[in-house]
């Protein structure tokens, strides 16, 4: 991996009146890296992405994209940027292919080059048959693929993906993932936000967990899981007071959510063995620890909305 820095943010801050959406965060993204921003709603992920993408002015701090300051050189940066937004903003006045052709004009691509790239991207995103369809005739998955195709028209060096697969069915989601992996393999730097831990685990070299505008944790997904949670999680439900007492007395990391216990097992195998031996009738599920466990353990289970 090249050591060139794609993105560097220092004390990046966004305030909306009194509300602090992003609170002086620092992070760096290397060229070719795929970094995921995780966090509950209102954590500041989208605000961060928007500032980095020159879409929203910084309240304080600095951000540089490939060495260019976002406040001073927005046009230059946006030439190199692909943005796949969270909410659909495809142009409903045009067909699928016309959406791409009109968008290519914003980058001043010559007509024949725009047509060539449009054809290429329609094939890549499996939208060929829908080239002449109006946007409203497209399914959710097709719209997302068109949004991604649109973000790739200028052959970006940095791709900003804001919740790229929210609301998609498994087939559509896997196709999106496949394309994003392919782009990454081609050397495109990716910054994505997501609510899906599985997505982050599959796509990201590194994840940054945000809450309340601050960075809580940062690291490679597997390392984070092992460091914060361990290998396994033993979920117990319909637990009696006796079981709860036992778990509390063991010095394990665990969480109680109503009648359910999440017991985190650093080494693996220990919790299950103990519970099995002492409470054979206890209903339980043993599974691998995931990023979702890290997320819930660190960001808490409280609803944000």
């Amino acid at each position: 991996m090249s050591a060139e820095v794609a993105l560097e943010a220092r004390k990046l801050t966004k305030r909306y009146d009194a509300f602090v959406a992003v609170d002086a965060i620092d992070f760096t993204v290397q060229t070719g890296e795929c970094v995921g921003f995780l966090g509950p709603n209102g954590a500041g992920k989208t605000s961060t992405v928007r500032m980095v993408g020159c879409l929203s002015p910084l309240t304080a701090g600095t951000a540089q994209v490939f060495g260019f300051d976002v406040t001073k050189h927005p046009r230059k940066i946006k030439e190199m940027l692909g943005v796949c937004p969270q909410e659909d903003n495809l142009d409903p006045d045009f067909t699928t292919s016309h959406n791409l052709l009109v968008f290519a004009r914003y980058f001043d691509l010559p007509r024949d080059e725009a047509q060539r790239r449009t054809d290429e991207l329609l094939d890549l995103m499996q939208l060929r048959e829908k080239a002449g369809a109006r946007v409203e005739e497209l399914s959710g998955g097709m719209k997302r693929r068109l949004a991604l195709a649109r973000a790739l028209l200028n052959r970006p060096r940095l791709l900003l993906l804001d919740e790229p697969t929210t609301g998609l069915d498994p087939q559509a989601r896997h196709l999106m993932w496949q394309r994003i992996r392919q782009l990454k393999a081609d050397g495109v730097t990716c910054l994505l936000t997501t609510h899906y831990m599985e997505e982050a685990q599959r796509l990201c070299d590194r994840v940054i967990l945000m809450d309340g505008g601050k960075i809580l944790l940062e690291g490679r997904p597997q390392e984070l899981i092992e460091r914060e949670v361990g290998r396994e999680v033993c979920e117990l439900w319909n637990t009696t007071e006796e079981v709860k007492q036992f778990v509390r007395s063991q010095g394990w990391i665990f969480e109680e959510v109503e009648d359910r216990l999440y017991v985190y097992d650093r080494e693996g195998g220990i919790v299950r063995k103990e519970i099995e031996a002492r409470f054979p009738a206890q209903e339980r599920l043993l599974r691998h620890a995931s990023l979702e466990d890290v997320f819930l353990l660190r960001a808490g289970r409280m609803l944000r909305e």
Partner: protein
Amino acid sequence: MMRNVSSRAWRVWQRDLDVYRTTWKLNFLPPLLEPVLYILAFGLGMGKLIGTISYFGEDIAYLRFMVPGVVSVAIMFWAYFETTYATFIRMVYQRTFEAIITTPLLVEDVIAGEWLWGATKSLLAAGLMLIAVSAFGLASWPSCLLVIPLAILGGLIFSALGLMTTALSPTIEGFNLPIFLAIFPMFLFSGTFFPLDILPLWANVIAWLLPLTHVSLLVRGAFLGKLPPYAWASVLYLLVATPILVVVSFRLMKKRLVK
């Protein structure tokens, strides 16, 4: 403020033109039909009751007086309704601007593109109306060609007024207020359908402050082949008011769009 506008603003204008072109037959119809309907209604109907009226010391047929008023109103309406309703839909419901500013275009380019497109709608409408009106022999050539630059100038000022409205209106229903308090009275009381000198002095003073009064004076001059007295004052009004309104409307729109 205007420093950040680049030639890429035309890309936004082109986008709007593309939409217009996909339904151009339907778009051409209203400006062609509107004057015809007015001419029929006022020529065959009401104009007969009125006969001739006195305009700057000359007696002219009411129809000849009124038709330039209809064109002037169209110059206002086509620009104003484009940069209010249509721009608002693109801005809020379609999120078109959000998408555009992820490209090398800045918010200022988007605003400028919309502003220019609003004026283009006035130009297209006035051009088509000129053809229809000429077909009825109600335009004096070649002076009526002055309607073209006047439609651009008038279009630019009403387009800016529309952008101001859009920038300040939280919802699309919010347009009702400025439309019924400002635009509709302007439509009726700007010397469009009757000469201003029959109004009391105070009403004349108000009318002279309104941009449509000046547009309609000049447009009528172009159609009749005879400029009104103080035409230079009307030109001056438009040349001074337009840049002021443009700067204000750009400021307000930028405030609305940048978050």
